């Protein structure tokens, strides 16, 4: 009976995975097909659209800006959120629900609504602090809060944070040491997960940048689609592929780091 169930499960898995692959890869395939079309009906396949990415300076500027934003947002997220969550769990468990509520709040405030409220603040920032596109990272940090919180919360919930930190503290470690050498190495996959979700969100973000007149990757792609649809499709396929490869590579890195402290994790 168990064997037949296992077989059924395997069949079910492959059917579902195949159907999903078809649904998700078909538009990707269509995009690549579209972006390699030549000019004219019988024209041969061409990679001109792809080559244009590198030779269009606005595009490469926007790509670099989005990549920088992705890194800055992830780092800021970790620096701001992780110590707060650890501290709240250890010292202020009463306000854990408040922090959770605040972190999940961006989900209830639609991005387009948040733009309405945050625009005056950005006008002030661009006049008094900086008019660089990197200022968008402040708003992006808010957008990634729900995803980052969930990922980190799952990670922190899976280790015995209290015992670990108390042991470190009683051996004379300061809070900095506790954070960097105890907490961070204990939850590598949660940290990676949170960072990856942040990177993916920032690379795909359009609403904020567009309505606050910054040119990030997605805004540049939208402009480019008016000029040369092939190039705009090529660049977003490239962005997706880049994000995918990044997530894949990092998922392997996460496993390497997790083994040494695995023994400390709760079952």
């Amino acid at each position, binding site marked *: 009976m168990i064997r037949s*169930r296992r077989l059924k499960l395997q069949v*079910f*898995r492959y059917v*579902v*995975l195949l159907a*999903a692959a078809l*649904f*998700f890869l*078909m*538009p990707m*395939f*269509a*995009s690549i*097909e*579209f972006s390699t079309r030549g000019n004219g009906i019988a024209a041969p396949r061409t990679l001109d659209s792809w080559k244009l990415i590198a030779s269009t300076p606005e595009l490469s500027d926007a790509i670099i800006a989005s990549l920088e934003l992705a890194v800055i947002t992830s780092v800021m997220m970790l620096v*701001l959120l992780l*110590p707060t969550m650890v*501290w*709240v769990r*250890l010292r*202020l*468990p009463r*306000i854990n629900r408040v*922090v959770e509520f*605040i972190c999940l709040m961006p*989900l*209830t*405030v639609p*991005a*387009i*609504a*948040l733009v*309405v*409220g*945050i625009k005056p*603040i950005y006008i002030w920032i661009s006049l008094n602090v900086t008019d660089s596109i990197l200022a968008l990272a*402040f708003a992006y940090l*808010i957008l990634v809060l729900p995803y980052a919180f969930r990922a980190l919360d799952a990670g922190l919930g*899976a280790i*015995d944070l*209290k015992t670990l930190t108390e042991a470190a503290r009683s051996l004379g470690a300061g809070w900095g040491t506790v954070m960097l050498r105890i907490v961070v190495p204990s939850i590598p996959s949660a940290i990676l997960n949170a960072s*990856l*979700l942040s990177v*993916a969100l920032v690379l795909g973000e*359009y*609403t904020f940048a567009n*309505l606050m007149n910054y040119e990030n990757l997605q805004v540049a*792609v939208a402009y480019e*689609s008016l000029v040369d649809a092939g190039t*705009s*499709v090529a*660049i*977003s*396929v490239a962005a*997706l592929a880049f*994000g*995918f490869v990044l*997530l894949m590579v990092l*998922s392997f890195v996460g496993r390497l780091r997790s083994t040494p402290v695995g023994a400390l994790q*709760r079952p």
Partner: protein
Amino acid sequence: MTAAGNPALSAAARPVSGGRRLPLSWLGVVPFFVYVGIFLLLPTAIILAGSLVAPDGSISLSNFAGIAKPFMFTSFVNSIEISAVSALVGAIVGAILAYAVATGSPQGLVRRTVMSAAGVFAQFGGVTLTFAWLATLYTTGIVYVFFKDRGLDIYPGGNIWLLDLRGLTLIYLYFQIPLMVLVFIPAIDGIRPQWREATESLGGSTWHYWRYVAGPLLFPSFLGCTLLLFANAFSAYATAAALLTQGGVILPLQVQALLTSETGSSQPGLAKALALAMIFVVLVVMGAYTLLQRRTSAWLR
């Protein structure tokens, strides 16, 4: 499960971490609260306050009267409908996909691939997502041509549903399903194989297992994820902006039109009132979810 696992420890630690050392321990959360205060709570307050300022500068509720127009009502209905349908379908399909992934090896290639792909697709949107679907299903698209060559027209009577709200719902699934996989898989991972074995040793069938064990355990999380998908679709803007040529069919487009009117007739007060209305809708759904969850957790006890 894990948080409640150590009552003796947390009880012993409470007097130390509690009230007496309040000022010092609160210092640790100041950066976080200052930050969200500026970039999350202040904007929300600005929306709230701004929605009460009429175009002539006086304080009134006139902006909310501006919402009560037939075309506004239509976009409300459209927005809620498209979000609800894409959230429900996305949640069901995403949950099945998540289950198919979670039952494989946790360190396997399939899981890594699906999770990485879900990570990028969940944030995919805008003009290129629309393009991808046009290249697939529009009258020159590869799938359309494939079926057409075999005598099957997916647009019976020349009704190209891809370009209206039905098409938008389908396109939304392209980021809704991956998001569901991402947020639902931890819940499935939490289910222990032992529970299945326990069901079986008590004589339960697969149906019993799903009906009485796994189903009720996963249901609250499933509902929560569905709600998240609803909120996600409700605020999605870039894709609709690219697909629907006439503006204002759904709420985010109405807000955008009010914010950035090219004829100079932008109405920031009305935009804020509309933004507030959107928040209100999500809050109502959230409230319903909390009530439901209270019900289900009562069942679980």
